[in-house]
């Protein structure tokens, strides 16, 4: 069992406590969901539970927080390994090996098990979770969902008593989430204690025994599953939380996919388009596509179906395999397009926010106005890499606005965002739209698609 008494933690070189006077008890076999806005302290709690604090993330720890008798102030991270399995947010960066089987075997190898025991563990784990078809594959060829399932398998391979998951679904589509859900359900049935920090609450609602709401490092409230399900949507939204049921949004998104394009003069249109890398392997075919200035179009579909490839082709980064796009020249499309990438770190080049947004700007006179509209005025002299993820994203959007380009693509702008921050991003989309841009949003977020997109295209 897990018990925390008056536990506080402050990361090194920060001013405020990430966790404040936390009192919580988690019984063996319970499934707990930690929720709250970004930066509320839920990730910090997961790091306390799996021993990464203070071994890896150092800082000032006071009070008691014991995980099955292990005290982070005394026990080293190694002591936690056999007891706690961890799954993290980003499927791309939680693999240590190049090969899926090696990744599953990795914890056993580190624990010094003999070869036949490891092989048995790996086969059993694959059989338990239906991962056989994923064994002996290169991780660079797996989809995000498949990666996350292997990561979950690897977290379970040492038969831990506690599983800690930190936003495991933020990069996944609905099918992949359902598969992860079934894996967690299996572990719960075995009596394993499970702690999940998560923004998307709908998929986990039937497994959770208790919901814990965090705000500014403090535990604000706890509800058991029935109480929490009874909370009205408005209450959840006021707490900055995502809905417990997304069927309605799914419906709305599908209805929006039936809508015709509004304008008569499309900015970009395509007929019988086939996109992909190279003629031999077209990824996806589109019979008809168009987008007009002043509309927000959502682009949805499973992981790996070709959303990004289509967007890259429309932007002029890729040549179409076949079919026609107007404007036909890639260079011309590239000149009029801007993409806010899912990983914004790739597109920040300058030493300060102001220089960053002015780089390649064609409307420099609007700089101050845009910075203040996006709440970046106070950050104008900061180094872009010193900002938080959400702030970096706003810098990229500001660059898009100042570039004067008319076709703006956003790749998964709301992945891993709570309700509050999701609406903030949605407002930015509206600002782009009001500026007269054609906005294409690649997303898995049906709530965003239903609430803020004018139209939805399902691939």
């Amino acid at each position, binding site marked *: 069992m897990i018990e925390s008494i008056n536990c506080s933690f402050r990361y090194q070189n920060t001013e405020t406590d990430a966790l404040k006077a936390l009192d919580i008890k988690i019984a063996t076999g319970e499934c707990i969901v930690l929720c709250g806005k970004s930066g509320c302290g839920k990730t910090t709690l997961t790091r306390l539970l*799996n*021993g*990464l604090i203070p*071994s*890896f993330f150092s800082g000032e720890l006071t009070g008691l927080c014991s995980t099955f008798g292990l005290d982070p102030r005394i026990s080293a*991270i*190694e002591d*936690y*390994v056999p007891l*706690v*399995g*961890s799954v*993290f947010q*980003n499927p791309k*960066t*939680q*693999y*240590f*090996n*190049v*090969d899926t*089987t*090696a990744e599953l*075997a*990795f*914890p*056993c*190898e*580190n*624990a*010094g*098990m*003999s*070869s036949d025991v*490891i*092989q048995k563990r*790996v086969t059993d784990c694959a059989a338990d979770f239906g991962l056989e078809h994923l064994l002996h594959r290169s991780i*660079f060829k797996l989809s995000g969902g498949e990666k996350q399932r292997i990561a979950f398998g*690897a*977290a379970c391979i040492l038969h831990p008593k506690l599983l800690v998951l930190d936003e495991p679904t933020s990069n996944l589509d609905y099918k992949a989430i359902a598969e992860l859900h079934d894996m967690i359900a299996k572990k719960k049935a075995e009596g394993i204690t499970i702690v999940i920090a998560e923004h998307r609450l709908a998929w986990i609602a039937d497994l959770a025994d208790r919901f814990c709401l965090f705000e500014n490092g403090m535990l604000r409230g706890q509800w058991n599953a029935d109480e929490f399900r009874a909370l009205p949507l408005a209450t959840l939204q006021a707490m900055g939380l995502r809905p417990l049921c997304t069927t309605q949004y799914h419906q709305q998104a599908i209805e929006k996919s039936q809508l015709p394009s509004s304008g008569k003069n499309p900015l970009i249109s395509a007929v019988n388009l086939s996109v992909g890398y190279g003629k031999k392997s077209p990824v996806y075919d589109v019979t008809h596509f168009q987008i007009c200035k002043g509309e927000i179009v959502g682009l949805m579909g499973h992981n790996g179906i070709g959303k990004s490839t289509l967007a*890259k082709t429309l*932007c002029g*980064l890729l040549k179409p395999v076949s079919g026609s796009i107007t404007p036909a020249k890639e260079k011309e499309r*590239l*000149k009029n*397009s*801007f*993409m806010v*990438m899912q*990983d914004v*770190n*790739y*597109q*920040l*080049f300058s030493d300060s926010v102001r220089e960053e947004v002015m*780089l*390649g700007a064609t409307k420099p006179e609007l700089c101050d106005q845009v910075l203040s509209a996006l709440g970046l005025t106070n950050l104008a002299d900061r180094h872009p*890499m010193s900002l938080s993820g959400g702030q970096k994203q706003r810098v990229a959007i500001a*660059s898009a606005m100042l*570039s004067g380009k008319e076709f703006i693509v956003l790749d998964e702008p709301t992945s891993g965002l709570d309700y509050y921050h999701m609406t903030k991003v949605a407002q930015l989309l509206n600002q782009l739209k009001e500026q007269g841009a054609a906005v294409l949003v690649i997303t898995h977020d049906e709530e965003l698609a239903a609430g803020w997109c004018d139209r939805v295209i399902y691939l």
Partner: protein
Amino acid sequence: MPVRLDPRAKLYLLLLSNLTLFLHVSLRAEILLVILLLFLFFLSGKLKSGIRMTIIYSALVGIDFFVIPVAEGLLLNFLSMLSVGIRMMLPCIISGAYAFSTTTVGEMVCGLRKLNVPECIIIPCVTVVRFFPTIAEDYRQIRSAMAFRGIATGNVALLRHPAQSLEYILMPLLMNSNNVAQDLSVAAMTKGISLPGQHTSMIELKMTPFDVLYMLTCTIPFILFLGGVL
């Protein structure tokens, strides 16, 4: 059924071909060694690479036999010098290519562990193998991002402003690598990379008589050269 050597045998062959380069082994001994090495490609089912390497090496040996004796003029002399240089490096390239294309990371790690190489050397090796494909992907992403900003679009532009381009590529690359490195370390630590005690391998490696035989056979040309026979 393709036959593959034990990683340790591959390591030995790599060492051997390096020695032939540094000790200037005679052409005849070198040819014998290369034939033995090329045979490995065909044994392991890598026909394409095997044929390609065979053609390249035969061509270079052909130049050695037929062009160099009659070479006149500065340019031709220079070109034949170059071909000899490349030919002498080929044994290393061939054994290296064989080792890399037929060994999985798991086998490499297991082999190194059996040779009692400390974990503090093995782990960085694994990390490097894991990192390289990531960097290629990162580079593509950054180039796209630069294209949207109108910075150095196309390869020619990269060369025209090398310093600026380097900065625009390196900054995001390093920042991103830093993030990835932290995430990877965190994941590896929760999976027990720092656990004390002997780490084991799922794969079982055993030196077969065939491995030993092959290693010895490959050494024969080298020994004959040292003995002055070849």
